[in-house]
């Protein structure tokens, strides 16, 4: 029987697992009459055990693997900026709004898949807004804010899994959000600068700019 490889060290007691005792053990005597497994000495994949128990005064504290309130708040705020920038884009804001709701809802549940779908909603909103001719400045702000929202939300989810909601993670989240915002600002500023320089020029110039960026990216990959 696998012996508690995933036990979250210290945070939980030997658990109950009737047969085949996987994670937290020593379990109840199992179906096979051999009893269940022993307490595994768990190497600890932070976050594999997302049991969700309310803390009691003397109760054992377990890992609450949902993202922290800080991360949810930052991601929600940045996502709101992304949707707000799409506002003049008509139908775009509807798609983006659904994405924002999914993003915040997914973060509250700690469901990475829903968070990803939410960000995808924001991005589709950006595409729709671009297609209906949203002003370039607003479009860039919306796109950059979507990217930052994804960055912050994904970090919040991984912090939830590895460190848990109970731990103090605010500092790491603020620093990360600041770094992400800086990258977004630089990227937007550079792109916008080039756009103004070639203002009125053909779309081809911008396509070449994009090609240049991709070449740069592939060089970095090598």
């Amino acid at each position: 029987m696998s012996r508690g490889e995933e036990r979250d060290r210290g945070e939980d007691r030997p658990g109950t697992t009737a047969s085949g005792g996987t994670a937290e053990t020593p379990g109840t005597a199992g179906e096979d009459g051999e009893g269940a497994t022993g307490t595994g000495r768990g190497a600890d994949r932070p976050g594999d055990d997302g049991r969700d128990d309310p803390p009691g005064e003397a109760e054992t504290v377990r890992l609450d693997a949902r993202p922290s309130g800080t991360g949810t708040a930052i991601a929600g705020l940045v996502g709101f900026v992304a949707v707000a920038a799409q506002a003049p884009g008509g139908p775009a804001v509807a798609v983006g709004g659904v994405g924002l709701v999914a993003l915040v809802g997914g973060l509250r549940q700690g469901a990475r898949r829903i968070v990803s779908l939410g960000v995808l909603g924001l991005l589709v909103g950006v595409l729709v807004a671009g297609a209906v001719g949203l002003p370039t400045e607003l479009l860039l702000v919306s796109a950059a804010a979507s990217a930052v929202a994804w960055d912050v939300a994904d970090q919040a989810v991984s912090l939830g899994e590895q460190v848990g909601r109970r731990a103090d993670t605010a500092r790491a989240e603020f620093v990360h959000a600041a770094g992400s915002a800086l990258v977004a600002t630089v990227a937007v500023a550079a792109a916008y600068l080039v756009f103004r320089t070639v203002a009125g020029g053909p779309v081809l110039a911008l396509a070449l700019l994009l090609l240049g960026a991709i070449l740069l990216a592939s060089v970095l990959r090598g």
Partner: protein
Amino acid sequence: MSEARGPDGEPPPDRRATPGETLDRETNRWRGVNALSLAAGALGVLLGQPGLLLVAVVGVAFGAFALATRPPDVHVELSRELDRTVADPDERVRVTLTVRNAGESLLADLRLIDGVPDALDVVGGSPRTATALRPGKAASFSYTVRAARGDHEFDPVTVLARGFSGAVERETAVHARGDGRLACTPRLDVGDPLPLRALTTGYTGRVVTDTGGPGTEFHAVREYRPGDPLSRIDWRRAARTGEYATLEFRRERAATVVLLVDTRETAYLAPDADAPSAVERSVAAAGELFTSLLSTGDRVGLAAFGPGAFWLAPGAGVGHRARARAALATDASFAPTPREEPFFPGLELRRLRRRLPADAQVVLFSPLCDDYVVRAARRLDAYGHPVTVVSPDPTADATAGETLARLERQLRCSQLREVGLRVVDWTPGEHLGAAVETAGARWSG
């Protein structure tokens, strides 16, 4: 680091770093950003919207940023401080962990998971934290554990670090300096006495035997033999009939008892996640019984039937009691979590037989959740060491499997009773004295 690689040369996600080792894992959190950017760019070209092309540039910039960043260099110094390193059971102990960035670069996303010993429960705060540290800066966090019996050693702290982009996660483990151990030695309380089986030593004690002699409980009347003490001659009968007769009382003798605790891995069972395991209850009961038997003049020994095979030969006295207390609290054989060592029950049983004094009886503490321990108990009994089994019940009945396990255990209890062993079935929450009283009602002599 050559072993245990995943398909992409990545360490498998469930593998933990050992101190001094670093594991790098791609988080793949920016996967698809370039594809999405190109889609936006293509849409822009199709519709003739320059804005979408700029959006693509921003996206590619994020993708390039993610590719460009390297995993951070993790040089951290950790120190752990406990507000006390020797605690009583259930006492709250505050653990403070301080982390200092001893490297040259900023650690933007540093996650720490303290290696709390398995047997300790965290009851306040979290043994995990995430922070960001500039070079030379330190941060600390604290949490509270509930002390439990044993000598606990903290494991190394797991450190996970990511750069700003978070594209690669570096995992390592670091030993914390400072306090690394928490010792907790329960006091031995005097418990209720357990009726012993009729195998005694030559010393006077409290076990009432079936042989006549001096004592308090009437046994028989026999013919007077010269030399019988005057106090035991039945003077009434002598006055009535003129014949002398001698009263016999049941002799009261001391016993030699070895308390044998089943500490095999199969004995670490509990009815639910937060309940104490059968071994934990066995050890507590053995402690109570040890002192109560010593106080009634019996000679008591202590042994573990499990890895480590602890053995304390029967004895008496204050020093003996102290040795037993220390062993039950901190000896690795009675650890609150199973030891990862091979155990050969057959060999161990033979060795135990050689060690047991000829007049020793055995009190076996076992949850009786496998068949081997039943055979072992019967064998010891057959070799002339009467066995009393004190069995903490670890079974539950929430699922069909659990109910089956409970029935099987009850069957094992019956089997042992049928062949004449005494079994105390001790349900969780019940006082041991009450369980002994219930079981004792059916015992004779």
